[in-house]
């Protein structure tokens, strides 16, 4: 993947003005909270996770079917690096915003280690970025975000979101407890950031493993699946 390819992907996958505004608003909200409630910036982090499920969901197949990536992919014997660059570019805006909020958190929070840079915060962010990107690869932009929002609303509407949260909080540090907490975390990752408890290292490792599995699945799809041009002869 050359420099031109990376720049081209940043042009093709450019976030919408609405998404840029949302991220800026979150950073501003974090800045406001450092003045009014500097000890608790969980709100901006949790909402950023929701925004990232949309922002990282840039989609691949429909654009590839229209030929938008033709000039980048033509002649490349391997699409692996293209796929990885696509994933990184998709997650970049959310990553920058996450880092900005974490820096604000560190500067305004009286010297405590920012939530965004803790293992559980980083794991939640990486997992949701990888999952949103990978899930949107066969579909269009924002598809993974919409799907996850529907799941979250469904869980909240049926009262199961509270149950998931309780399962996560009640989980012990044993293997059994870790597996018990894994379901709620994979289904609704903001619970890791929203709850003050510290999950076990094993649980964080499992979340990172799930993120890696999602990323590899997306990369495999891009690298090995030929998307035919829409009006191919």
């Amino acid at each position, binding site marked *: 993947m*050359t420099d031109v390819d990376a720049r081209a992907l940043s042009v093709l996958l450019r976030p919408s003005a609405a998404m840029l505004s949302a991220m800026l608003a979150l950073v501003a909200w974090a800045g406001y909270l450092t003045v009014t409630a500097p000890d608790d910036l969980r709100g901006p982090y949790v909402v950023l996770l929701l925004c990232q499920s949309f922002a990282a969901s840039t989609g691949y197949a429909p654009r590839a079917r229209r*030929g938008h990536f033709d000039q980048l992919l*033509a002649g490349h014997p391997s699409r692996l690096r293209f796929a990885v660059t696509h994933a990184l570019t998709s997650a970049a805006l959310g990553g920058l915003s996450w880092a900005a909020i974490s820096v604000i958190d560190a500067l305004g929070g009286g010297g405590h280690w920012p939530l965004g840079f803790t293992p559980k915060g980083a794991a939640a962010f990486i997992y949701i970025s990888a999952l949103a990107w990978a899930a949107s690869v066969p579909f269009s932009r924002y598809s993974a975000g919409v799907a996850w929002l529907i799941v979250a609303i469904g869980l909240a509407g049926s009262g199961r979101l509270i149950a998931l949260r309780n399962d996560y909080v009640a989980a012990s540090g044993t293997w059994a407890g870790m597996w018990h907490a894994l379901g709620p975390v994979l289904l609704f990752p903001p619970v890791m950031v929203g709850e003050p408890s510290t999950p076990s290292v094993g649980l964080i490792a499992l979340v990172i493993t799930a993120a890696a599995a999602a990323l590899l699945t997306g990369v495999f799809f891009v690298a090995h699946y030929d998307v035919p041009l829409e009006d191919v*002869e």
Partner: protein
Amino acid sequence: MTTRCTLTEVSKKYGRQWALQRVTLRAASGEIVGLVGPNGAGKTTLLRIAARLVRQHAGAVDIPPGSFGSLRYFAGERTLPPDVRVSRWRRLWSLAVDQHAGWKRIATLSRGMRQRLGLEVVLWRPHSAALILLDEPWEGLDPDASAWLAAQLEEVRLAGGTAIVSSHRIHDLAAVCDRCVFMNKGRVTSEVDVRSSLPATRAAVLYEAFEQSKKVHE
């Protein structure tokens, strides 16, 4: 002349239908090769296989490693990203920014302007290692732009580059191509070298070959 691109016995099927069956095609440096055939002949699939955008089910694609960075492919204006601004797209590919249309989004340009924008990217600074694959490049172009395209292809030839051009516009192909390969129903039916023909008779020669090629698999 050095062989720049060789496709040997290439076959490809979509579902149960064969799009290409044992197609062999060679293109040398300094050569412009035309691909002619009715709709559904497999021209686009063949170009996409040569561009490594689609994998063949059988056969081999041999493009010398030095050519990979120089392989350029354009399948028509509909493959340009509609929501990107023209100036941004031109800057990305190191083209001079068009002051008149620079602020516009690609989708707002006319079809011919979009086609020319895409062609400018792939035909920019041709060189001896360039392998340029064009699918229906004359679509939407006005006479001036068509003449510009012919001049650009001539530059590719003079630079020692290679171009494979698929088109239905036999008159335009006759003016620029050294050789035309005729396809029908996923197979190569014939090949005509027009270098030996007089310029005035080239189009007639190609039209006749086209009519013959349509009958081969009927």
